[in-house]
């Protein structure tokens, strides 16, 4: 390592740096500009720096939208700080705009006075036109309200990587690393992890690895030496108070996959994961396909129906069937899910929700499949519905899904969403042996066996798997006699079986924790009830208002069906109830029907997470509403 390298790699942090409690940075550029990668690296470096953080990757619906278009803009947002970070941030403090289209799309959410970093090299006539600018915003005064750092990043990058003899195209591809280096300096991040990562990623192309590292370093050096606009300096964000442990960043998809794997271990089962690709659910298939040595065989089926069919078949055969999709695909699985619950077989259905109806907004997030999960089948067909509130939470919810599905011989729908699936967050890697095992017992005893024998406590049917001598039996979707397990068309028996199926699911409520209050007091004036990925903004908004002296509390429901046994009494303790959802009001309907409380909805159906301010405003309005 040369001396200059050493100096570059070890800047003196904090020297003349402004102290910040938190900051929101958004990287925006063309789909081809590598913004998601840039964001991932910044996230990692930030996590290593000990800040808490939350991210929001936001990319176009197209695979590769034509260069320079507004619909081709790909962005990555990160909020990080010395305190607990609950959302990716309402507005940005810093915006990196790699081209005019990115500026066009994102500028309105940069705070006035915020820091804008633009690559002037991309502000060509042609790109300006494509973005929809009549005049160049760098010169027409429209960005005067920001503090702008306008650099020809393209040129700088080409210069920095010249020694490596790359093609012009490959050389320009290093632009994002140059920019990252620049931003690293601004926030006092270390480059080491990124350098390491580049070396691994381009192990087979060391020239590219080196060029990227050179770009990174050059950007960093530039920031250190450049004359920044007045009022802009390096920043320092102190480490947050974080529970001790070993950490990594994790997306909801990864945590969910690992949770399933660990749940299976606790259950002592193998599994078949059968799925058909669909945005944003496919990554779960991809991650599991990579990890087939851990007990889950993956199967890409011909469609969603085949996927759920194979999963149910696997459960019949004595492993755990798991399937995964998004709303439209889950719709196709409805009939087969009915069979699973009628045949009382375990099954996990993961729904990574996206914007709808129909094809809708496939790459945007939404929470609008709650109705479908709870009610979306023909006949009286109750099952268990769980929801994950964050990427990290996916791990625990997945384990819980395995536990309930196998203990109660029932399908479990696990609701996550496009936001959770893709957003990375820092995660304290759990100690696996702290989870209590819940080993599944298969029936082997012949005496008194019939296939609809039940555990008198859980009401779960016995699980007798093919291959077991003497337990040969036939099951299916026709109603069964309670006493013999044979087909039965008897009227009273059908009534009884319907009631038992419902009671079995209702009974799960006694086997899961009571609903807790996240923050605030029971009996406060206003209860804010959320579920799923709205956790962050709700929690921060309520926290802010409690600090300002308002009587507010936050409840976040994981068990969507059956609802927690104490939820009704909790809710009845509040004067008013507000239910923010990224849909047109679904959990709110459930709560009203179950508890006859006048809960009201705060609904945002925009394919995007709530902003904290939106929730604060709504809470204040609800507190002030004259009844």
């Amino acid at each position, binding site marked *: 390592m040369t001396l200059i390298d050493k100096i570059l790699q070890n800047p003196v942090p904090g020297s003349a740096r402004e102290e910040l409690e938190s900051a929101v940075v958004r990287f925006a550029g063309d789909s081809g500009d590598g913004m998601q990668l840039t964001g991932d690296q910044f996230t990692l470096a930030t996590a290593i720096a000990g800040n808490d953080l939350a991210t929001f990757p936001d990319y176009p619906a197209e695979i590769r939208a034509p260069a320079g278009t507004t619909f081709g803009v790909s962005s990555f947002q990160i909020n990080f700080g010395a305190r607990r970070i609950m959302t990716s941030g309402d507005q940005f403090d810093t915006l990196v705009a790699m081209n005019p289209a990115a500026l066009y799309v994102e500028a309105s959410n940069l705070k006035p006075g915020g820091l804008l970093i633009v690559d002037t090299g991309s502000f060509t006539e042609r790109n300006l036109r494509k973005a929809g600018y009549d005049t160049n915003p760098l010169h027409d005064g429209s960005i005067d309200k920001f503090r702008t750092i306008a650099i020809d990043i393209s040129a700088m990058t080409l210069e920095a990587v010249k020694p490596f003899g790359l093609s012009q195209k490959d050389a320009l591809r290093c632009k994002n690393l140059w920019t990252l280096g620049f931003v690293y300096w601004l926030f006092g991040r270390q480059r080491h992890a990124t350098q390491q990562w580049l070396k691994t990623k381009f192990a087979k192309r060391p020239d590219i690895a080196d060029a990227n590292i050179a770009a990174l370093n050059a950007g960093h050096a530039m920031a250190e030496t450049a004359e920044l606009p007045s009022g802009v300096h390096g920043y320092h964000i102190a480490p947050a108070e974080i529970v001790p442990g070993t950490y990594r960043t994790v997306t909801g998809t990864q945590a969910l996959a690992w949770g399933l794997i660990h749940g299976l271990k606790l259950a002592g089962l193998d599994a078949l994961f059968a799925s058909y690709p669909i945005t944003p659910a496919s990554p779960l298939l991809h991650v599991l396909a990579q990890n087939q*040595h851990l007990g889950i065989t993956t199967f890409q089926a011909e469609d969603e129906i085949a996927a759920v069919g194979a999963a*149910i078949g696997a459960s019949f055969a004595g492993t755990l069937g798991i399937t995964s999709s998004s709303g439209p695909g889950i719709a196709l699985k409805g009939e087969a899910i009915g069979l699973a619950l009628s045949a009382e077989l375990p099954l996990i259905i993961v729904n990574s929700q996206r914007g709808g109806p129909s094809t809708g907004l496939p790459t945007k997030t939404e929470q609008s499949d709650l109705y479908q999960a709870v009610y979306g089948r023909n006949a009286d067909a109750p099952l268990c519905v769980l929801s994950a509130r964050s990427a990290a939470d996916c791990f625990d919810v997945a384990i819980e899904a395995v536990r309930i599905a196998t203990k109660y011989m029932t399908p479990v729908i696990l609701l996550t969403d496009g936001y959770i699936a893709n957003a990375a967050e820092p995660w304290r890697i759990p100690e696996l042996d702290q989870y209590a095992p819940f080993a599944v017992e298969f029936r082997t005893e*012949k005496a008194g066996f019939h296939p609809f024998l039940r555990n008198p406590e859980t009401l779960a049917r016995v699980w007798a798997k093919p291959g077991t001598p003497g337990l040969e039996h036939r099951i299916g979707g026709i109603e069964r006699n309670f006493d013999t397990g044979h087909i039965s068309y008897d009227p009273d028996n059908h009534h009884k079986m319907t009631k038992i199926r419902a009671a079995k699911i209702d009974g799960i409520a006694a086997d899961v924790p009571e609903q807790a209050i996240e923050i605030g007091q029971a009996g406060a004036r206003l209860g804010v009830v959320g579920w799923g990925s709205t956790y962050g903004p709700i929690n921060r908004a309520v926290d802010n208002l409690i600090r300002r002296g308002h009587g507010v509390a936050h409840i976040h429901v994981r068990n969507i069906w059956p609802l927690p046994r104490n939820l009704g009494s909790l809710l009845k303790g509040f004067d008013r109830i507000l239910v923010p959802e990224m849909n047109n009001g679904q959990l709110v309907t459930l709560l009203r029907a179950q508890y006859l409380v006048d809960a009201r909805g705060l609904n945002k159906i925009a394919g995007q997470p709530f902003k904290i301010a939106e929730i604060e405003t709504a809470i204040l309005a609800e507190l002030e509403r004259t009844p």
Partner: protein
Amino acid sequence: MNEASPPVKRTAKDYATDQEVRWCPGCGDYAILRAMLKTLADIEADPANTVFVSGIGCAARLPYYVETYGFHTIHGRAPTFATGIKLANPALDVWVVGGDGDMLSIGGNHLLHVLRRNINLQILLFNNEIYGLTKGQASPTSRIGTRSPSTPMGSVDGPISACQFALGAGARFVARGIDTQQKNLPEVFKRAHAHKGTSFVEIFQNCIVYNDGVFDNFTAKAVADDHQIHCEHGQPLLFGADNKKGLRLNPARLEIEAVEIGDDGPEAAGILIHDETNLALAQRLAAMDQPLLPVAIGVLYCNPARSFDDGVAAVRDEAKKRGRGDLKATMHAGHTWTVDA
């Protein structure tokens, strides 16, 4: 429920359940069930390791009557459940049963994919050219002009030929049988069972209530000799009373034609020898249709390839080789950092 495997050899009867059979009196399904029970006895099937999977329809009731494991699932999807069963436990011996509506109407896609994947299952399609259970509507195998409650003026859609479809889908084992042929049918079932990969068997089945006699043109005693040909690997393709007719290639059209065999015997007449590994021949045999050509019965095609379940097992092994160790190791792989207390 059965007691544990007795050491004595089971008879066909031992494979029957005590459930009252709920088909119409005279239905061809009874005969197929009989042939199946005989097959199970002949192959000494282990009831504990045998699974019958079916969709919905009259045919699909069969699992209730076989004393093995059974799963009566939903309409059209039986191959998907069977796929899951087989991937979960490849040691199980899985039979899939369904009707022409179940397998070729709503279930056509799953049949296509199970065949092209070549999962190690036996698929039995009971073709009665009608929807039995829902009371007699035309099915995708019904001939043009079929009058039914849903097609009172006669159906107008061209029927699917099950075996031609199966071959087009890439099936590696395709055979045909007839419900009443109690000698041939178990033999076909046994061949299907012996084949590793997806075995597809079409069985012409008489629905006495809604489509009685629809196969009489080649199954009736009086015409059977002249209108059926039983294909046997390595044997000349002969038919007719005293095997006096045979099949020959018409090279101009790449097609097959039926000829009377002169006194010089089959070879002189250029009669084809059945080669069940030959796809081109199998396609021609499957396409033969009444009244010009006899209906081909028996194993039309048998040409094994690696089965999907073996492929999946190989992938699992490969994954184990590559795997980054246990879950803990996986979670700790890549960048981690430690926050101290």
